[in-house]
């Protein structure tokens, strides 16, 4: 452990504080510690190692593909095997490597950058990790058993429907990937609340490190882009399992619905992958150029507009599906427009280089590799946005080469730069063995040889996903060159991983802040201790370490906020979102095996349907609810503490005694994702109504007056109940009558939803009926959730966990109830209106 070692100052205070905090924040040192730790360093490291393992697996699959394509008429693999291999290569790289890898990096780095001690919801982070490990492993194990999906990573129905893909391959994909998306959503919520609320004192939005902006934007994108995909997977899975015909034309479905839902996710996904890497470049490049980022505000604006614009591009993956030309033109124009914010970023970085004095070094080398590669990927991307050009090269190797330029050049290279740049921080060691340079010169040139050849093969008409080709088609030489170079590239990547691993374990101890960076992650001890900062820093600018070179010392001596460990619990500071003023003191939960257990039962509920073990899945779902309640019950307290001393004379309330505790913020963003999911369902309904060939159905559902009245009354009760309960608790009065009112309201809404199902038995008859069942199911699920939450609230009140101060939980329940009412009424209206007007 490298302690701050100023020459003349007394060390005693810093050391005492370090020992006290280390004891409070320590994870269990036994083996079981791996399963109970929720510390961001532990979770992040595990995340990183697992994601890298999946990268290796995906890379091996890529090598198998190139081996197959190296020669014409290859007998290396049969088409059945080849189809599984390329499907899994795409799936593993996109879902099991790219997203988890940057999540890992943000877990490791974000608290340090923001000047806080841990992520906002440490246990949620642990839960996300384990769900990801289980889901990812299940997908890999299925592949090793020869049960992998083989319909391509975008799984277009009807090819992926039960009729054309019998067997469980497609189900593995749908359920495994969905569980990983659940994990990504959990992490995204954690990141958003951390960035918005958990920062150093005085860190206003304009003083946030640029990476925090990028990762904030990306996390909001995850919450809005993944729900359409989750809905798509749900629709396809129920079609496969229960024959609800969402994508079957003859029964009112439409296969194009899948493509819309998939690319509503799939296009933003590209930017979800690119933006964290861009955030890394914007962090690293100015430091390596010994200057500050040029046009910080412009880069923030570019990141936000890029994020939103990327949601208006999804149809450009569907240019050949027969959409009218005006529709294509909208998306063509939008697709070229995203090049503008991208170019703002690129030129801001080049301008930064001009402004400063660049020094080389491995991180910088990889960033140069990024420029040389990503610019080409961006330019071919603009070409693909041109409709007539797209009509020719769509689904050829040109597209394959383009996406590898964007993803490897725009993501993998900057992330390797980030690994090398942050290695002194993460491992406490400076690089000693210089294998990395060799690896770089193996990877980047061979990457370009590989994928320039693939571009050419595509322009010469080689289709993607064909398992082999004939010698007389003229692609032999190009493919052989691509394959050979790709093997060199693979060796280079292997050397990089080896270099990082060797240096992480055996290189020499390094000094603090070797690059001379100005941001807070370099102000703590290295490697970062479990508690992060001995006290919460106070910052006055964007680069606090440049403003105050002795900042690390002040932090270590406990001269920031909360520099007093006497309350013996994991405390950190919550600040106001915009201006960064200290607002609350939050107590983070300690080590627990609950996240691991909850992940086990969650994954069971996802994976059991693969083996038709629906009873097991149902039981697991009950266990999920039960464990979640146990988890929640363990938080909070039974007595009001009042304001506590946060240092610097600030007396701050505990977060659990505020109206907007972190859980409330987390709920807001979870409900955002839930709302997007619901919106996607409405979109699917409207889409089928507008374009599906076999519509309208034989008849529309006729609303019944009693059901409408029950629904409206229930909605009223569910709106009023939680409000009255909050008011009662705030006044110290009796809350149970109001809570009961809410429960009755949610049950009434559930009955109204059930009436929709009862009126239209047989969701397998027509996509309309199936959609009605899903709408009603949405209402049913949320009313049940609301009822459970209200019961839980009643129990908490009875057990003394609520008081006029400790009212946050009641507010959270109110939030969920309001969401249930709002979406419930919309869902029922959507179900009833066509019948009322028909």
């Amino acid at each position: 452990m490298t302690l701050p070692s100023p020459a003349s100052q007394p060390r005693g205070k810093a050391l005492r504080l370090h020992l006290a905090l280390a004891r409070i924040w320590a994870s269990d040192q036994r083996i079981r510690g791996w399963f109970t730790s929720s510390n961001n360093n532990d979770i992040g490291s595990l995340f990183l190692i697992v994601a890298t393992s999946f990268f290796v697996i995906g890379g091996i699959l890529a090598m198998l593909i190139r081996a197959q394509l190296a020669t014409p008429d290859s007998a290396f693999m049969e088409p059945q095997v080849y189809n599984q291999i390329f499907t899994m290569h795409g799936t593993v790289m996109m879902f099991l490597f790219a997203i988890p890898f940057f999540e890992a990096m943000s877990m490791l780095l974000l608290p340090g950058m923001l000047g806080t001690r841990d992520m906002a919801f440490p246990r949620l982070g642990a839960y996300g990790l384990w769900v990801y490990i289980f889901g990812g492993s299940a997908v890999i194990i299925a592949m090793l058993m020869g049960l992998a999906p083989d319909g391509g990573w975008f799984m277009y129905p009807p090819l992926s429907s039960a009729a054309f893909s019998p067997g469980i391959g497609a189900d593995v994909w749908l359920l495994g990937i969905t569980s990983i998306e659940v994990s990504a959503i959990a992490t995204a919520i954690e990141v958003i609340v951390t960035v918005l609320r958990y920062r150093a004192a005085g860190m206003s939005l304009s003083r946030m490190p640029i990476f925090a902006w990028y990762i904030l934007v990306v996390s909001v994108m995850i919450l809005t882009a993944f729900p359409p995909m989750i809905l798509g997977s749900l629709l396809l899975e129920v079609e496969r399992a229960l024959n609800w015909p969402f994508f079957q034309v003859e029964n009112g479905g439409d296969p194009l619905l899948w493509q819309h839902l998939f690319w509503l996710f799939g296009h933003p996904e590209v930017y979800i992958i690119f933006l964290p890497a861009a955030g890394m470049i914007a962090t690293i490049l100015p430091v390596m150029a010994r200057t500050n980022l040029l046009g910080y505000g412009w880069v923030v604006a570019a990141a936000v507009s890029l994020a939103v614009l990327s949601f208006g591009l999804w149809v450009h993956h569907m240019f050949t599906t027969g959409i009218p030309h005006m529709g294509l033109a909208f998306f063509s124009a939008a697709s070229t427009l995203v090049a503008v914010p991208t170019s703002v970023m690129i030129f801001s970085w080049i301008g930064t280089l001009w402004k400063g004095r660049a020094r080389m070094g491995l991180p910088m080398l990889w960033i140069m590799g990024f420029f040389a590669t990503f610019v080409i990927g961006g330019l071919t991307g603009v070409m693909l946005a041109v409709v007539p050009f797209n009509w020719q090269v769509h689904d050829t190797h040109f597209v394959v080469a383009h996406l590898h330029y964007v993803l490897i050049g725009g993501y993998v290279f900057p992330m390797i730069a980030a690994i090398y740049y942050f290695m002194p921080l993460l491992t406490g060691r400076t690089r000693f063995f210089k294998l990395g340079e060799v690896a770089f010169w193996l990877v980047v040139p061979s990457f370009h040889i590989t994928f320039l050849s693939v571009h050419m093969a595509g322009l010469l008409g080689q289709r993607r996903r064909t398992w082999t080709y004939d010698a007389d088609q003229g692609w032999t030489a190009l493919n052989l060159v691509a394959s050979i170079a790709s093997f060199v590239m693979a060796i280079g990547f292997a050397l990089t991983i080896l270099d990082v691993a060797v240096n992480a374990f055996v290189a020499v101890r390094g000094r603090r802040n070797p690059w001379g960076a100005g941001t807070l992650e370099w102000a703590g001890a290295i490697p970062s201790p479990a508690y992060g900062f001995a006290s919460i820093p106070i910052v006055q600018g964007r680069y606090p370490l440049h403003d105050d070179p002795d900042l690390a010392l002040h932090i270590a001596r406990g001269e920031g906020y909360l520099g007093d460990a006497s309350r013996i619990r994991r405390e950190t500071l919550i600040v106001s979102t915009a201006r960064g003023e200290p607002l609350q003191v939050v107590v983070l939960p300690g080590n627990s095996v609950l996240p691991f257990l909850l992940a086990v039962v969650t994954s069971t509920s996802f994976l059991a349907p693969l083996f038709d073990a629906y009873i097991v899945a149902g039981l697991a779902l009950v266990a999920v609810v039960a464990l979640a309640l146990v988890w929640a019950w363990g938080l909070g307290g039974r007595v009001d503490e009042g304001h506590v001393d946060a240092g610097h004379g600030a007396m701050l309330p505990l977060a659990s005694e505020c109206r907007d505790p972190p859980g409330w913020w987390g709920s807001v963003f979870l409900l955002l994702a839930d709302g997007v999911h619901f919106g996607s369902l409405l979109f699917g309904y409207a889409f089928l109504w507008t374009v599906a060939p076999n519509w309208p159905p034989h008849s529309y559902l006729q609303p019944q007056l009693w059901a409408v009245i029950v629904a409206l009354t229930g909605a009223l009760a569910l709106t009023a109940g939680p409000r009255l309960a909050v008011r009662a608790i705030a006044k110290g009065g009796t809350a149970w009558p109001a809570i009961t009112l809410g429960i009755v309201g949610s049950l009434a809404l559930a009955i109204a939803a059930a009436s929709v199902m009862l009126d239209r038995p047989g969701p397998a008859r027509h996509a309309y009926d199936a959609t009605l069942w899903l709408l009603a199911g949405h209402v049913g699920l949320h009313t049940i959730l609301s009822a459970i939450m209200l019961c839980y609230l009643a129990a908490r009140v009875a057990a003394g966990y609520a008081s006029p101060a400790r009212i946050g939980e009641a507010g959270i329940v109110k939030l969920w109830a309001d969401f249930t009412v709002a979406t419930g009424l919309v869902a029922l209206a959507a179900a009833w209106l066509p019948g009322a007007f028909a």
Partner: protein
Amino acid sequence: MLTCALAIFFFVMALIFAALYRPPNPSVCGRNESGTRVWIWGLGVGFPLVTLAALTAYGLFIGERLLPREAPDLVTVQAQARQWAWTFRYGEDRAIATDGVLHIPAGRPVNVEITSTDVIHSFWVPRLAGKLDAIPGHVNVLRIEAALPGTYGGQSAEFSGRGYREHVFTVEAHDAASWATFLAEGTQ
């Protein structure tokens, strides 16, 4: 397009290398205010906007010309895809059918009505037009025109499972006389 792309690429690379290896005296672009003006406004916003506006407009103009509009001597044929074969039908009542070979008259615009009976496929004759998907339940219309009589290679261009690679067809473009013969023989 390729030339422009290459030019832009080398321009950007030149800027980077100039930044890395320029003499240490800070240039005009070094100061923050003017730096923002040059880098963000000039190169970041202005440069791509101008290039992209031109490119998009050009692409849409070309796209408009390729659309299946009304034409005087238009021929309409039907292309029906399934795993892994193509059936083409001709004539008023679609009475003539061929498997694996699409017959068209050369020098006349042809509308191909594309559909599928099972999974999604895509109709692609690289030398005649771009590709258009064959989607069950939908009929997509693609305009093709062969300038000269001859044989053109065609293939499906949407992954469709095991037999995807072999899912190919040919287009036979006839001169006026042999097109008449083809139609006459087919109706018998």
